[in-house]
Every structure is written in C-alpha cells, then in structure tokens.
C-alpha cells in the first residue's frame, strides 16, 4: 500500500481528513493523492489526511464536488489532553496501562478504584 508520511513537513499540524465512501470515490482520492503528494500528509486505503493549505482544501473540495456525499471532509486539529479532558481521565489511562494484570478489562479495573466509570465517560463529550 502506498503510504506517505510527512507530518513533520506540514507547515501546521492541523489537517483535513478526507474519507471516500464508494469505490469510485476511493479511486479519485487515490489519483488525487498520487498526483499531489506534496499536500498528502497520510493516505491509507480510502482515507487521506491533507495538509491544511488552500491547495489541500482545493483538492478536498474538488473531490466532494465530484462525488458529493460519497466524500466526507472534516477538519481535524491536534489533540491536547490537558485542554480536552478532566485530569481523572488522563490519570485513568496512565494507571490502566500500568496495570499488573494484562487481562483485566478497564471496567473491572476501575470498579475497585477511584477511577472514572466507562459508562459515564461514554456519555461525556469532550471540551471544544
């Protein structure tokens, strides 16, 4: 699979996420990525991350123009856990990954400890 990875050379780390939902759209996406690898941050299968430049946006828009809803475009930004989640969630991730019993599911791991309940986490949206 042709994969390019040049996240480091991207002027900003925000990217456009482009997903193809039909075989035809995937072919167009692959063609666009092959022809303009300078805007491709990552491409795998029917998904591509394009640099957040006008040209990256132009390619994404062109694909959506051609394939309508069969192409989805999202704008993504780097994830900062200190801005997005409460400390308990970060703490839970750290402690769960440091567990002694690899087979324990998180639900059981959290039950006896002062850690956030997975159900509650599922229902809580992230801060913008």
């Amino acid at each position, binding site marked *: 699979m042709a994969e390019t990875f040049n996240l480091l050379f991207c002027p900003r780390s925000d990217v456009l996420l482009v*997903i193809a*939902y*039909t*075989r035809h759209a*995937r072919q167009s996406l692959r063609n666009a990525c092959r022809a303009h690898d300078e805007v491709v941050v990552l491409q795998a299968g*029917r998904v591509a991350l394009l640099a957040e430049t006008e040209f990256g946006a132009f390619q994404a828009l062109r694909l959506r123009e051609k394939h*309508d*809803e*069969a192409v*989805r475009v999202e704008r993504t930004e780097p994830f900062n856990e200190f801005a997005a989640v409460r400390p308990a969630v970060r703490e839970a991730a750290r402690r769960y990954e440091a567990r002694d019993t690899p087979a324990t599911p998180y639900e059981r791991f959290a039950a006896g400890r002062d850690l956030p309940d997975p159900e509650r986490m599922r229902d809580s949206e992230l801060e913008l």
Partner: protein
Amino acid sequence: MSTTVRCRIGDVVRRGRALTVTAPVEPTVLARAVRAESDGDTRVTVVSDEPGPAYRYVGCIRRGMGLRTRTALAAAARSRGFETPHDTALAAARERVAALTDKSGNESTAAERERLRQAVAEASIKSERLRETVAAARGRLQARREQELDPAPAQTALAEAIERLSEAETEAAAARQRLDTVRERSRERQDRREEQFRAEDQMANLERRARAHLRDTVEDEYVTALGAVPDGGETATPFEADPVSRALAVARVADLSAPVVLACGRFETACAAADWLDTPVIRSTSPER
C-alpha cells in the same frame, strides 16, 4: 443448438454458419446486432443463438482492437461452463450488494448542505463582529464614566449592541442546529454506504479470485491455440502477442455460439475461420474506413 445464422443488411439476407459480408458496414455494428443492441442502425439485423459471457471480449475481432486478455480468458472458461470454488460465496456477495444498493431515504441535496454550511459560517462571523461592537461600546461607556461625562447615550448604544448580539447568537445557534441535523443524516447515509462499500470490495475480491481460477483452468489451451493462430508471428510470452492473435486464441478456447465478427484478414474464407474457431462466423471484408 442451431448454428445457422441469419444476417440481414439492407435488403440482402444471408443464412449459414460462415457468412461473408462485403457491404460497407462497421464490424462493431455487426457485433452489436448479434448482441441485439440496436444503436439506431436499422439496416442490420442478426438472428442467432444468445452470445455467451466471452462474446463481449472476443465477439468482434478486428485490426486495431484492444483486449484485456486475462479477463477475456476467464470469461472464455465461464462460457465453457467451468466453475470455481468461489462461486457460492460470490453469488452471496452479489446478492448482498444488490440488497444494499439504492436504499436512499429522505436526502438533502448538495446545494442545500452547502447553503447550510454557508449560513453557519456567516452567522458566526456576524456574532464575532457584534461581540467586538459590544466590547467597544462597553469601552466607550467606561471612558465616559471615567471622564465624568453623561453616560446615557453610551448606555443606550451598549444595550442596543448587546441586543443585536443576542439575536445574532440565537440565529447562529439555530443555523448550527439545522446543519447538525442534516450532518447527522448524512452520516447515517455514509454508514450505510460504508457497508455497501465493504460488500462491493468483498465481491470484487471474490470476482478476482474466481477469474484467476478460471484462467488457470484454460491457460494451457489458450497457449496451444495461440501457437496455431494463422499468421500469429513469434512472441516471447502468450499475453504479449498482438491483440488480434490473442483474441482469436481466446475465441477458439471459448464457447461462443453466437457468430464472431471477423475483420482481421487472417483467414482466406469464412468457412476456414468457422472451422478453426469452431463457431459461426461473420467475416467482414468491407474496405477499411
């Protein structure tokens, strides 16, 4: 199975297993007539047996033709009734794809979605601008108070700005809500498409595997046939011979039943061609365009 073909061009009707056409009719027009695909040309009709799966690849063999030999060879094997271990799974995959296709509900148009995105962007720009207006009005009021001037006009201005901001924010929230609803539905459709997509990929994989299997079944026959093609010339590999030779070899392997249209000059007579291919033939000797 009848091997007699009836071919009418204008007022001239020919019947037989090996026909020669001298009238200036494009070979592709003849082949379309065999497939009973009228393209508005009512001069030509051909009555014959149903063309099999290989006909679309090698039903019309002419100078300058192109050929996807591997695909054609798989179709040739299919025409002979060969089966593959993937056929059951393939039939199921095809049914699944058919069942998943065309289940479109209440769809918004691309133009509607574009309008909604634009409305949200504009509403948020407007709110932002009004927030700045409110901040400026607040600053002016503060300044007037510090300068011990009459605060009333600045108070009114601030109140007005706050009201306009509040209206704009309500409007922006409503626009976002409308866009969210439509996006939600878009995502549901995309989820369905994703399922369809996976089913299509699976079907395509099975088709590829079935084709490879079918090809393997008849590849030796094909190589032998290629070696016997009249004026076939020498080639390094069987899949790199000239397209006419490859097509003739595939046609010899295939069970075509419907007449093959030939415009390739490899056979002296239609009979010789029909014997070599073991299938009915319409040989076109009309001058090239």
